């Protein structure tokens, strides 16, 4: 696979990384190369951050609740608040029957939110900035909806595409619209998260790059660099909001889709 010309590429890329390249942060580099059956399943920086997310979140949830205090400590409050936040979200959308999906929605919410937040640290990798990850999570949600829907309601699940009270003449049109909207769900769900993370990180990097480039231009440049620096600070705050908001949106939509699986006829 590897050609001699790649060495030149690598050299060029190292050089490019020294300059400001907003895309560089999304590169996936193998740390431990693993090949199984012709597939490259190397342990990469992306995999490393997945492990970091899971370990950090898992340890936090485990040790913050280890005391099982009646009056919670601050850390235990954070765990409890996230639990109750997701629980009320799911209960509102899917009712008490939906609570059987709670561990699933809670895992998705925590994973996506911690992934988004960890990605905000400089030099850290943001796993949700890759479409394949968000698409896999979205397909997991839709797959759960479809499998549970058919297992629970059989072909009654298809009532999801036939809204009640629609005139028969309009049915073909409405049903086709419903089918298209259902099929576009995983796409919109994954692209929304992916694009938000990607755009946010690129914007941050571009403005941070202005700071560096202007700073290299002498005193006047340094004075001018104050503006993009202020912009980077403001954007970081915005991205913090976006990170939490997109995790919330992902979880809310998950809850609503799961509600469809529980009650297909609307």
């Amino acid at each position, binding site marked *: *696979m*590897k050609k*001699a*010309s*790649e*060495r030149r*590429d*690598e050299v060029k*890329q*190292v050089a*490019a990384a020294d300059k400001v*390249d907003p*895309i560089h942060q*999304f*590169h*996936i*580099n*193998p740390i431990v*190369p693993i*090949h199984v059956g012709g*597939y*490259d*399943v*190397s*342990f*990469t920086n*992306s*995999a490393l951050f*997945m*492990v970091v*997310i*899971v370990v950090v*979140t*898992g340890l936090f*949830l*485990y040790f913050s*609740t280890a005391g*099982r*205090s*009646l009056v*919670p400590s601050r850390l*235990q409050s954070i*765990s*409890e608040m996230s*639990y*109750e936040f997701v629980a009320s979200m799911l209960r509102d959308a899917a009712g008490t029957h939906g609570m059987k999906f*709670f*561990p699933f929605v*809670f*895992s998705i919410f*925590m994973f996506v939110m911690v992934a988004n937040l960890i990605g905000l640290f400089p030099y850290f990798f943001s*796993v949700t900035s*890759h*479409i*394949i*990850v968000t698409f*896999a*999570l979205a397909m997991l949600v839709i797959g759960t909806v479809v499998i549970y829907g058919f297992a629970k309601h059989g072909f009654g699940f298809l009532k999801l595409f036939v809204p009640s009270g629609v005139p028969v003449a309009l049915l073909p049109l409405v049903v086709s619209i419903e089918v298209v909207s259902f099929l576009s769900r995983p796409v919109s769900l994954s692209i929304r998260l*992916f694009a938000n993370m*990607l755009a946010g990180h690129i914007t941050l990097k571009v403005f941070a790059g202005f700071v560096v480039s202007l700073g290299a231009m002498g005193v006047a440049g340094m004075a001018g660099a104050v503006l993009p620096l202020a912009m980077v600070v403001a954007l970081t705050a915005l991205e913090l909001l976006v990170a939490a908001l997109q995790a919330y949106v992902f979880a809310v939509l998950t809850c609503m889709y799961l509600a469809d699986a529980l009650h297909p006829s609307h």
Partner: protein
Amino acid sequence: MFVTPAYGQEAAPASAGADTHAGTQVPGNAAHEGGGFPPFDPATFASQLVWLAITFGLFYVFLKRVIVPRLGTILDTRAGRIQQDLDQAAKLKGEADAAVAAYEQELSEAKARANAIGQQSRDEAKAEAETARKAVEAELEKKLGAAESRIATIKAGAMKDVGAIAESTASAIVEQLVGKADKTAIAAAVKSAG
């Protein structure tokens, strides 16, 4: 060293910051070309999917087995404890209300009793004063009667003397005027005048 793929792959991490995958896709400086955009590089999909499945799967199992039951127990215990405390508080409040009601009852009874006692003593005092007043009045009445009868007696006595005084006075005047006086005529005149 970079001639065989296997060595090349292993050597990649050593060259810090270098990206093998983007390089395998597009010759040239991949980072600046659309085809080398890392999120759309299918060569990394398998690795990401596998590691996502492993990490997220373990995460899900850990949360489902350990964290969710634990947090659920904590919250349930707290909700139960709060309910218990609320019940206890409601019971205590009921007791306090009953005590207040009993106190109010006793207070109003005591007030009524005090009123009754006051009324009674007022009545007694009034009655006593009344009898005392009546006795004094009767006494005064009696004294008044006695005084009146004495006045009447004195008046009657005085009236009896008035005739004689008038006669003697009249006869003395007549004698002075006429020289002599007819006693019977004077007496008759005094009588008719009196």
